[in-house]
């Protein structure tokens, strides 16, 4: 994914146990704000948002004792830079069988940066159903928004410069849990 962050100088800002604690806190916040999380549906944005959504769902199930519907939402074809790159491989969109109409949808992603991914996700949601409300949970908010979008649940606010890269590694995909902050190598700006 974020291939530009593979420098040795990348320094971890969150380790495995931190990520677990952060997700537990977000789960409690969701239950608190949604007054019991009765109608919550978690939708992860591929790739790593999906793993985070599944982990959050497991935590929510622990807290509420109920099954929490969890799915994934691929935003590839809704991206505003679709025409600026070669066609990208599609990821899986999996909507829980009860649908999204009238539910509280919590979008889950790893890093919130420009906000363009989330705008695309809102457009994609529009074609799938009409939730009661849409909220956003992210593991890291690194700032530099280019659209009027904010997260409702933030794991860690990470002030960064545009010359830095933030890379999230998750056990399911990368074999370890960590959030790494590195220096950007000479790659074009505005990615992600």
């Amino acid at each position, binding site marked *: *994914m*974020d*291939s530009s962050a593979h420098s040795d100088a990348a320094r971890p800002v969150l380790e495995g146990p931190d990520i677990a604690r952060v997700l537990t806190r977000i789960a409690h916040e969701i239950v608190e704000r949604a007054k019991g999380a009765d109608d919550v549906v978690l939708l992860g944005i*591929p*790739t790593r948002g999906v793993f985070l959504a599944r982990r959050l769902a497991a935590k929510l199930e622990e807290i509420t004792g109920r099954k929490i519907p969890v799915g994934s939402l*691929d935003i*590839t*074809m*809704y991206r505003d830079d*679709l*025409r*600026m*790159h*070669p*066609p*990208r*491989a*599609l*990821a*899986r*969109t999996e*909507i829980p069988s009860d649908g999204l109409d009238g539910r509280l949808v919590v979008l889950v992603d790893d890093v919130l940066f420009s906000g363009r*991914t989330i705008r695309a996700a809102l*457009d994609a949601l529009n*074609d*799938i*159903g009409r939730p009661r409300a849409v909220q956003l949970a992210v593991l890291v908010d690194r700032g530099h928004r280019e659209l009027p979008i904010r997260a409702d649940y933030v794991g860690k606010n990470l002030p960064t410069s545009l010359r830095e890269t933030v890379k999230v590694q998750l056990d399911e995909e990368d074999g370890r849990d960590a959030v790494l902050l590195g220096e950007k190598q000479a790659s074009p700006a505005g*990615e*992600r």
Partner: protein
Amino acid sequence: MMRHLISAADLTRDEAVLILDTAEEMARVADRPIKKLPALRGRTICNLFFEDSTRTRISFEAAEKRLSADVINFAAKGSSVSKGESLKDTAQTLEAMGVDAVVIRHGASGAPYRLANSGWIDAPVINAGDGTHQHPTQALLDAFTMRRRLLGPDAGIGQDLSGKRITVVGDILHSRVARSNVDLLHTLGAQVTLVAPPTLLPVGMDSWPCDVSYDLDSTLPKSDAVMMLRVQRERMNAAFFPTEREYSRRYGLDGDRMAKMPEHAIVMHPGPMVRGMEITAEVADSPRCTVIEQVANGVHTRMAVLYLLLGGNEPAVSHARPVESESK
């Protein structure tokens, strides 16, 4: 991904698998209340059909519309072509109108290739069947149907068809479907056996990557999928077999023959079927027959091809461009 899709033989194994994987995701859109994706918004695609076709044209049109493209349908009947206009002039007219891609079906083998390489037109060209040459999207939808049925929709992701035994029966001589399938299935690792009377096999088949047999009954027990081809009466300009009844007896698929196939094996047909000729109604209506599924899968597969050819930045940039780059 290449710029045009002219022949199934042009696809590498990885490209073909990527198309099938993309088609799998496209198939899921069909279950949604709003069956529409924005990927090709603002792109104009012309369906240029010089030869009659119902299902291929409708299938392409459905795929284009589901991807939000603007569609122009062009049938040679009732157009300037019937007044004597050449392919070159038609192409240049379309180019001047700002068409972003051309889907072409033509009675002459090689017409799409000519269109793609002539410099008459800049837009990507997708072959929707040319003469007795190629019909690559048909081969892709057939491979997609096989992978779904033999491996499963989810288990098949990222997989090819290695080790699967596919038998294609019937009028190989006139069949662009057979040629495309032999090429693509070979690329995907399957073993293809062609079964036909000797008169309906083309000359120079030694170089094809497949086996040939004249005996259907001995091939059936060793098949994971059996594809029946229509006997193309409109192309039959010589006596290829004595009577239709004899053909049907030796090379038609009926219930007794289907019983010789392995339990899991499927019966395929690119349509249109001639019931009573190459396939009996009993077989055509059995749950093992995937004809209707193939039609539905045709839309998904064509969506995948259109997205991968046109969904990104200007396709004119380069010939072989990596498809899987970073996704975020």
